[in-house]
């Protein structure tokens, strides 16, 4: 039986990973480990010294509250990187997409293959993160493994949305701009480092449309065995909706850009 074409693309990514895994994976793990140490442990000690913190955060320690947020945010960041660099390289820098479509591979297979590869990569990074966090005593291993699911889902949804946008861009400069003005603010202000209740009242509703905030809520609820801010289905619904739109629009945009 013929292998689905997107899986053939996935195999190509896996082959290239033999050469690139050091740079991409270690980077994706070292960063969270540094954040866990500096913010979770270092700053967390100060936070925990203040009376009433545990009640306000509904968590035993700041580290325990911060780690699941960081998990979701890190996988979002890994997902956005997967949507940026491989797509810009395939379309522009190297042009591998332009040669791949001379084979049975279709533009949508390139999109889906990259997305599937992102699933694999994010799963690995997520699992490794949980083990590191468990070693820090930040997340119990069992609940942590469960908490990887919504964090990884949000990460892959990010890949879909970002790659759908990046495929339409000609200049690589847009990537730096996106990292600065989209990814970093999301990373910082989606309830990752501090509760969104600390944000000014006027800004707070904005988080409702940020998938990462929903991902953080679900990840943290599973890690701490608590309830998320909104009903579970709402959080999941927003992430799934962004993902669905990303996949549908992404497939079309890849086709539109490559089949001209």
């Amino acid at each position, binding site marked *: 039986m013929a292998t689905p074409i997107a899986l053939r693309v996935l195999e190509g990514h896996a082959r*290239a990973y033999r050469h690139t895994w050091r740079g991409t994976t270690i980077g994706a793990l070292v960063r969270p480990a540094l954040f866990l140490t500096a913010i979770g442990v270092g700053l967390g000690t100060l936070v925990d010294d203040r009376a009433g913190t545990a009640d306000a955060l509904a968590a035993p320690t700041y580290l325990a509250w911060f780690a699941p947020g960081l998990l979701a945010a890190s996988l979002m960041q890994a997902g956005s990187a997967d949507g940026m660099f491989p797509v810009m390289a395939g379309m522009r820098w*190297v042009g591998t997409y332009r040669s791949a479509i001379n*084979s*049975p*591979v279709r533009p949508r297979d390139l999109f889906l293959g990259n997305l599937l590869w992102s699933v694999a990569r994010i799963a690995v990074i997520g699992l490794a993160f949980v083990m590191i966090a468990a070693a820090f005593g930040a997340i119990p291993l069992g609940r942590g493994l469960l908490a990887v699911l919504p964090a990884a889902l949000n990460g892959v949804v990010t890949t879909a949305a970002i790659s759908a946008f990046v495929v339409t861009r000609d200049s690589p400069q847009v990537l730096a701009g996106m990292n600065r003005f989209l990814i970093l603010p999301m990373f910082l202000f989606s309830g990752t480092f501090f509760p969104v209740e600390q944000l000014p009242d006027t800004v707070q509703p904005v988080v409702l449309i940020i998938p990462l905030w929903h991902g953080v809520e679900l990840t943290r609820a599973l890690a701490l065995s608590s309830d998320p801010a909104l009903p579970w289905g709402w959080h999941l619904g927003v992430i799934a909706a962004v993902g669905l739109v990303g996949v549908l629009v992404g497939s079309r945009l890849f086709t539109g850009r490559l089949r001209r």
Partner: protein
Amino acid sequence: MKRFGAFTAVAGIDVEVARGEAFGFLGPNGAGKTSAMRMIGATSPISEGHLRVLGLDPEADGVELRARLGVVPQEDTLDQDLTVEENLYVFGRYFDLPRRTLRTRIDELLDFVQLSDRRNDKVDPLSGGMKRRLVIARSLINDPELVLLDEPTTGLDPQARHALWERLYQLKQRGVTLLLTTHYMDEAEQLCDRLVVMDQGHIVAEGSPRQLIERHVSREVVELRFADGQQAHALERLEQLDGDRRIERLESLPDRLLVYTPDGDAAIDAVNELALDPLTLLTRRASLEDVFLRLTGRQLID
């Protein structure tokens, strides 16, 4: 027919290529060669018209058709993260070729393009000619019935070009149909059984290299160079020979005067009779280049 918005890249071309033939699209930059190739290769939808490749409709049967094609694009687009061998392997997997089949075929192809000793090297340090040969090998990974080559030797040094032509000639001998675009006339003369000259999206001539030369230019060309300021005078004198069988056509270039003639020696006699006294005088056979420049003009087109 191919349109991009208001711009018509391919305005209407009507060609049939037989199996086993080597067919060329010639034309200046922007003539519509690449657009035509991409439509044939089922990676670009046709705006209008009828196109069948290997009996298939590129629009409806793109996946099936591309499985039987080999494509050498203008740019190399090799995967920089992969080794020489892996570039072939990954591309072969795109065709869902079994790993075992791929292993033997990669050995054969690397041998064919003389890259066996570089198989475990990354792509980046390879020379331009080597990269090009690797792209040719990649295009052959699925044992294609038809190979599309878009300017296969542009930017290569003479040795690399000849090495490549030799490989392509061998492919032709094996019965593979070749379709290539080029703006090198020597390449077209070397490789093509038949070709069309394209200009601004239209076909302006069609035939074998020999036929095109016979039809559009004379058999021989005499090139005359004169001392400063003498050329205009010489042209005037030669033009007065209007009706002389020895001279078919004259063309004045900034640096020399071309005399198209059925017989070079006779034309030189005519020049000597007029006592024109050129600085240099050269007789050569008319080439496809003369046809090309005659048909597509001498102005620079971008």
